[in-house]
């Protein structure tokens, strides 16, 4: 068994630029016919439809290697488009890397980000059961934790109302509440905390601190320097898809501010 919660080795993710641009009817039809067959040739999984043009690509993330020990709380910093979200998507297995690999030891919670996978036509209650199931709880577990989830989210009053009538704040509070009640060993958080109001943000930070104290490994993307300073033992700074600094929170934050100043 690995001594790390997360061990990333040379992770990279390449996107094809202009994958869907249609350069004329002829080419579009040719692609439509060829595309299914490209799956039957052995092309690497991480490169969408790349049967022709192997070189035009954009590396959203490259040469990323790091280790997280269990119980570590690590902040991920970087300007927009630095590759932070792609990293979390790879680690949560939402998408596959184009290069390298990672070992993940422990249950990964849902990737928390703005706009959770709720169905607008279902009520809050139904969505709790639905999302709980998608995220790995069985019905008994959800039933047992249902009251806690609703109480934490603070949307008790509206729990039997269709989610399409919820405000975005209510949605994210409910989503966050479900996620924290899964009790995952590893949590990947993508700027969720910025959404709720100040009191809910504080509540989330307390909950995350509680998790960290219990030995949960947290990898959180945030632009909120206070949250990072308060919660994290370590920070990693990304720029243009590369890791440029990994270490002590205050050092990395200083470097982050320098970069922003330029």
């Amino acid at each position, binding site marked *: 068994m690995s001594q790390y919660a997360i061990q990333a080795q040379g992770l990279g993710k390449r996107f094809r630029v202009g*994958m869907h641009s249609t350069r004329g009817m002829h080419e579009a039809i040719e692609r439509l016919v060829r595309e299914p067959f490209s799956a039957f040739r052995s092309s690497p999984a991480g490169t969408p439809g790349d049967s022709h043009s192997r070189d035009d690509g954009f590396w959203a993330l490259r040469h990323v290697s790091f280790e997280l020990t269990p119980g570590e709380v690590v902040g991920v910093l970087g300007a927009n488009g630095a590759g932070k979200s792609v990293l979390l998507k790879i680690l949560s*297995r939402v998408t596959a890397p184009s290069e*390298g690999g990672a070992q993940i030891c422990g249950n990964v919670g849902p990737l928390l980000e703005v706009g959770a996978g709720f169905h607008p036509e279902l009520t809050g209650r139904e969505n709790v059961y*639905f999302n709980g199931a998608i995220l790995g*709880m069985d019905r008994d577990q959800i039933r047992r934790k249902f009251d806690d989830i609703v109480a934490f989210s603070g949307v008790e009053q509206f729990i039997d109302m269709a989610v399409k009538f919820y405000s975005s704040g209510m949605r994210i509070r409910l989503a966050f509440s479900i996620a924290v009640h*899964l009790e995952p060993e590893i949590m990947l958080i993508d700027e969720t905390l910025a959404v709720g109001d100040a009191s809910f943000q504080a509540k989330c930070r307390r909950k995350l601190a509680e998790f960290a104290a219990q030995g949960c490994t947290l990898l959180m993307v945030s632009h909120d320097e206070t949250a990072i300073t308060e919660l994290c033992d370590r920070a990693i700074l990304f720029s243009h898809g590369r890791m440029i600094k990994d270490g002590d929170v205050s050092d990395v934050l200083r470097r982050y501010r320098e970069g922003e100043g330029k």
Partner: protein
Amino acid sequence: MPAKIGVIDADASIPASLRRTASIASIHADFTAPVLNVRELWAYREVLYALVWRDIKVRYAQTVVGVGWVVLQPVLTTAVLTLLAGRWMRAPAQGLSYSLFAYSGLVPWIYFTHVLTKSSVCLLSNNGLLSKAYFPRLLLPLSTAIAGLVDLFVTIVILGLLMIYHGTAGGFRLLLLPCCLLLLIMVAIGTGIWIAVLNLYHRDVAHALPFATQLVFFMTPIAYPSSLVPQSWRLLYSLNPMVGVIACFRWALFASPLDISLLQLTASMMAAVVLVVSGLFYFSRKERILADVGIV
């Protein structure tokens, strides 16, 4: 830090259901997914259940006629076909009452087109889930095929009532009806997964689908029996897997002989198998990068 490593070793504290992937995941760029990972699908059966439940729950939200739509579509189509093809064009009906004949073809057909339509959008409309958590993506087209079974069941009940009304007694062959349904579901899933992925890459697929299903409707023995097709065309005609499905369906329901030759039946079955196997293969190759196709 040995003290903290203990956290991972203390696996027992985690609920069993959360430990569905033995809690160690390996992510690799050059990983080739198995074509069909039955064990993993089974481990995620709660997710399948949730998806099916949600589909059924949401399907008729905010409609006036509600579940009545399930009945209206085949019944109205049968009425029109009976008048048009049965009365005016005098299409043969294997010795059955024409309305019963047409309806019995429409039951599998409507299920088939329903699954295709739902499958074409299942990856797009569940984008929120695809980008949020890992689960075998195959569950999405699978769940649409399973949720559609509710509608299929309702239309089959009506079929039973029609048979009783016409005094058409089903024999021992009715016991083989579940096999026919299985074949139908297989064909629907096979076609559905092809369409689901193709539609991600080319939205043209969703545009072409209503038109394509309409064309295939005419190339499937629903309003007329297969025996109407000229001999020289029959083998080509049977490459449509729905030809075999509908022939088997009617064979099991009514005490009439099989409408197509054994060679045709074999061709139809082979087409169905090729569709499903290639569909699964295609899907498994695309599964890991579905979230990248400009939807997240």
